[in-house]
């Protein structure tokens, strides 16, 4: 009972508030009420009678805002704020505008209120997600800071150890040189004895063994330093927000198992077989940005291109693949939700929208159509 009353009431409200010329934005009303109509794109001027006469006279068809001969039609959709739809949807028996203004009177029920409530709850849900995402992002940032500190500390330690090892190698090498000089002397002594030579030689052998050990230790440290340096040089975004994702695996468990190793490589794996793994591409920093990861030059497709993957990053409460598709042969696209891309700007934008729809909702509740009569 209450609901049906509501529908009737909104329909009437719209008829009353509707503009004089069908299909125009209220702010354009002046442009359509002169005796002479000037095309909005300046392509001509005509008598008023061309407006909505079913024939497009202007290049931009702005003389046909309310017929299917136009290009776009403005749905007022009170109190949602209105939007444009394609003119081909006007008067075709399919309800496109929630206020039913794209069809003849009485053809479509007014569903703007339902639409309004849906939008309100959608936005509320998204706001809640972004808020949770922002909290999760704080955690990511803290972890990124911790990882960075650890890695930098590790780097320092390694560098110190590198210096020590280098010194040790130098010292051993000079000891070796001294021993070699001694061996030369002993060998050249005319009355030199075999056992003296052997004694020096033993010392040399033992020093060489130390040198070799120290050198491989040094090599190992250098590699570790290079690894840490490479890691620290990766662009992990503002405040290194993506850094904690580096060692993770983002994956799906659908028919094909897709695995993303952020900033490294992506794969497709057989679901029940961990051996079969196909590279979808290696991470390309050049083709990636703050909200897109690009993986290129994956395994070549039979009869097609090298596999590639484009990942769109969307704000979410935790990091997961929410959509995976092979757009065309061996060209993959995925949507990944992650707190790392949540932003306060996004939150304020959503809150502004929420405010708008809340206000619309209030307006609608307080709307008294009798005032218009």
């Amino acid at each position, binding site marked *: 009972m209450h609901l049906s009353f509501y529908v009737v009431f909104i329909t009437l409200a719209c008829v009353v508030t509707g503009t004089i010329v069908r299909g125009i934005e209220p702010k354009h009303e002046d442009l359509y009420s002169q005796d002479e109509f000037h095309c909005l794109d300046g392509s*001509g001027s*005509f*008598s008023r*009678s*061309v407006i909505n*006469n*079913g*024939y*497009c*006279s202007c290049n931009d068809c702005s003389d046909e805002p309310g*017929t*299917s*001969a*136009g290009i776009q039609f403005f749905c007022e959709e009170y109190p949602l704020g209105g939007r444009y739809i*394609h*003119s*081909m*949807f006007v*008067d*075709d*028996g*399919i309800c496109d505008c929630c206020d039913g203004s794209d069809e003849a009177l009485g053809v479509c029920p007014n569903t703007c209120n339902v639409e309004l409530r849906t939008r309100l709850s959608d936005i509320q849900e998204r706001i809640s997600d972004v808020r949770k995402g922002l909290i999760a992002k704080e955690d990511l940032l803290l972890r990124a800071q911790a990882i960075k500190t650890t890695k930098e500390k590790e780097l320092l330690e390694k560098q110190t150890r590198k210096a020590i090892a280098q010194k040790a190698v130098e010292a051993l090498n000079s000891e070796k040189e001294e021993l070699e000089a001694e061996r030369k002397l002993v060998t050249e002594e005319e009355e030199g004895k075999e056992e003296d030579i052997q004694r020096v030689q033993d010392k040399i052998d033992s020093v060489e063994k130390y040198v070799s050990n120290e050198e491989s230790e040094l090599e190992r440290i250098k590699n570790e330093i290079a690894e840490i340096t490479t890691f620290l040089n990766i662009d992990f975004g503002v405040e290194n927000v993506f850094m904690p994702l580096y060692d993770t695996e983002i994956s799906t468990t659908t028919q094909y198992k897709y695995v993303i190793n952020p900033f490294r490589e992506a794969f497709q794996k057989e679901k029940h077989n961990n051996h079969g793994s196909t590279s979808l591409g290696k991470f390309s920093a050049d083709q990636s940005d703050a909200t897109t990861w690009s993986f290129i030059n994956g395994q070549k*497709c039979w*009869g*097609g291109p090298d596999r590639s993957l484009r990942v769109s990053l969307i704000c979410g409460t935790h990091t997961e693949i929410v959509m995976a598709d*092979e*757009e*065309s*042969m061996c*060209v993959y696209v995925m949507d990944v939700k992650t707190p790392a891309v949540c932003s306060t700007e996004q939150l304020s934008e959503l809150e502004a929208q929420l405010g708008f729809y809340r206000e619309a909702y209030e307006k609608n509740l307080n709307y008294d159509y009798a005032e218009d009569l």
Partner: protein
Amino acid sequence: MSDSAYFKGPTYHFEVANEDKKLDCSLSFYKGGIYRFLCQNEDSLVFNDVVQELDSDVFIMTNVDDVETRITAEGSVFRVTYDPFTIIADGYVINGNDLLDGGDSTALNILFDNEQGFYGFPEHADSYKLRKTVNDDPYRLFNLDVFEYDVRSVFPLYGAIPFVMSRENGKIRGFFYNNPSEMFLDVSDKDIYFYSEAGVVDLFGYIGPSYKKVQEQHHTVVGTPKMPRMNVLGYHQCRWNYKDDADSRFVVGQFEKYGLPFDFLWLDIEHTNDKRYFTWDLNKFPDPQKLVSDINDLGREVVIIADPHIKDDKGYHVFKAFDEANAWIRDNQDQPFKGHCWPGASRWPDFVERSVRDIWADLVIEYSKEYGIKSIWNDMNENSVFNGPEVSHPRDAKHINGRQHKELHNVMGFYHTMATIDGLKRLNPDERPFVLTRSFYGGTSAQGVAVWTGDNTADWDHLAFSIPMLLSLQTASQYMSGADVGGFFGNPDGELFARWMELGSWQPFFRGHAHLDTKRREPWSFGDEVLELVKKQVLQRYKFMPFWYTVFYESERHHFPPMNPMFVLDNFSDDVEDQYLVGDKVLVAPILHSGSSQRDVTLPAGRWYDLQNSRLAFDLKKTKKVVAHAPLGTIPVFQRGGTIIPFTTEKRRSVTKMIENNYSLSLLVAPNALGNAEGSVFVDDGSSYAYETLDDGAAYFTILLDGDAIEIQQEGVILEEKVLSHILIMDYPCIKEFEIDGVISSNIVCDTTKKSVLINVDTPITTMTIKLRK
């Protein structure tokens, strides 16, 4: 006259023989300028399934002496001589020198008095005017599944119509060498030479003398091409493959989002359960009925593919149906022929048999009813056999009727579509069915079946060759035809794609299609700029939909192809292959080269109006090469002065939606130098057979501008009032008012820059006079 020769009615029977071979020959005359020269021995196959009932109520006069038999039929004289054997007709000689040569093969030479241009004989990716083949390979007809075919080639393709049109100073004749075995054609300046692997000499001669007359004569023999449902003239979106339910809905949703009209979404082989046709892969399409009906709700249709190779699987209901009836094509050991195709191991039903076609038709009915499908795509019906010689059946495979495959090879597709059409017609007797086939023969068009030029390639050559290839099909009376827009193999760039959409939008069958390995290429795939350009072209196609529909109605009524070479105009006779006419009122001169934004257009004398901006473009005293400018997103299209064409101002999602919302008509008038113009418009419900008799729901209006009055004459009855919304007269002085049945109105807009007058008629169209007052 030999001893055994005799006349029976308008047919002359005689024998041609030597020591080795004896042929029973006949020369028959039929009403309307048609004759048939048939020479057969006892066991050779005469392919009568394509031949319509012919009217032999023709009076002939004969005059027989020792040297020749002289026959006069409907004013034409034919002389049959015996030594050597010839038939001498007006302007040419049918030379039977080689009739008795060879074993099973047949040969016939037609030698003309004067030099000719020869046309037709599809399907080849070659020029429209047939090349001289004297010192080169002949044209070959042998239906094959050709991988990545080349252009400028006499190599056979998917279909065969052994029809040749000859042209000499405006005198036009036709020849249909009705033989479904492998065939060759040699062409020189003055003669053509047919030879075929098996069968009989069965030549239908059409005396013309005009282009339309030859079409009509050919239609008398093989049947008149049927006009399609109106929505078939809309845009078709195809791809191998729209992967699943979500992908299909996504594509439809994108058309909605961008305000792009389209009418048919096509599902290729991957939609089936492992290439078992008439089934669905329910993992990908969990609820096919729902998908089909949701798409139908937006005024659009789904086309599914059903190929003739049947997966060798005893559990598959289609296999079972044919297997139980022992309905397969056989190998030379008389066992079911087995080969490989898309499903792997497969067999092929022998559609040559009526009873086998009935099984297929029943399957079509059962399936279409269950899923709400009204349109079917028959592909691979050459037949394509992956592991067979030249990717087809061995020539010694056997048919149920005892014939060797080589005798029937070129009509596998013809019989396949016959079965599909039959099923759809039985299911919906009041609605014209829609079937697309890759393989075809003469008469396929008369079944009401469309063809496309198969697996072309995304390059500029293939774009350009779509014109001669389609003209050849049109001349051979395969009216509903098109080429895959964008090119099937390979990836077009945005420019090639946009140019192809421009051209495709002015060709009869307008479908975008792409190979499995290609990048996605729906209209939005090349960025916003290309999308906007392409959208303009698609909208223009729909704007002129009433014109296209009228052209197709008239193609059946007047035996005049929808797409024509320039020489059908009275004042033009050159061979031009990079521009053509739609009907005879609109000239299309597409841009066919990368990087170009202008081209030369050859225009015959007279006035030519630019259709894209509705104004007079050229007023020529004689034929002239002019330059037409066409930046990407525009195609030079001209309306001939002296014509009127219909259009609609209402934009819709689809043709079906246009019809549902009873689209209004408008007229675009292009006066000639005398201020006159004529045209027509056909209106019906878009799908019924009412057009055949023009009563109960179909009407044909002829429209005449005679100086200061527009006369409209109605023939037939429409059930729902059809509003004549606007008349735009181009290059016409401003008028103050107009009068219909004594009612005067000044609802007129004069455009002084374009020099056009827009009349807001807004009156139901009927027989009436509209007086124009200055």
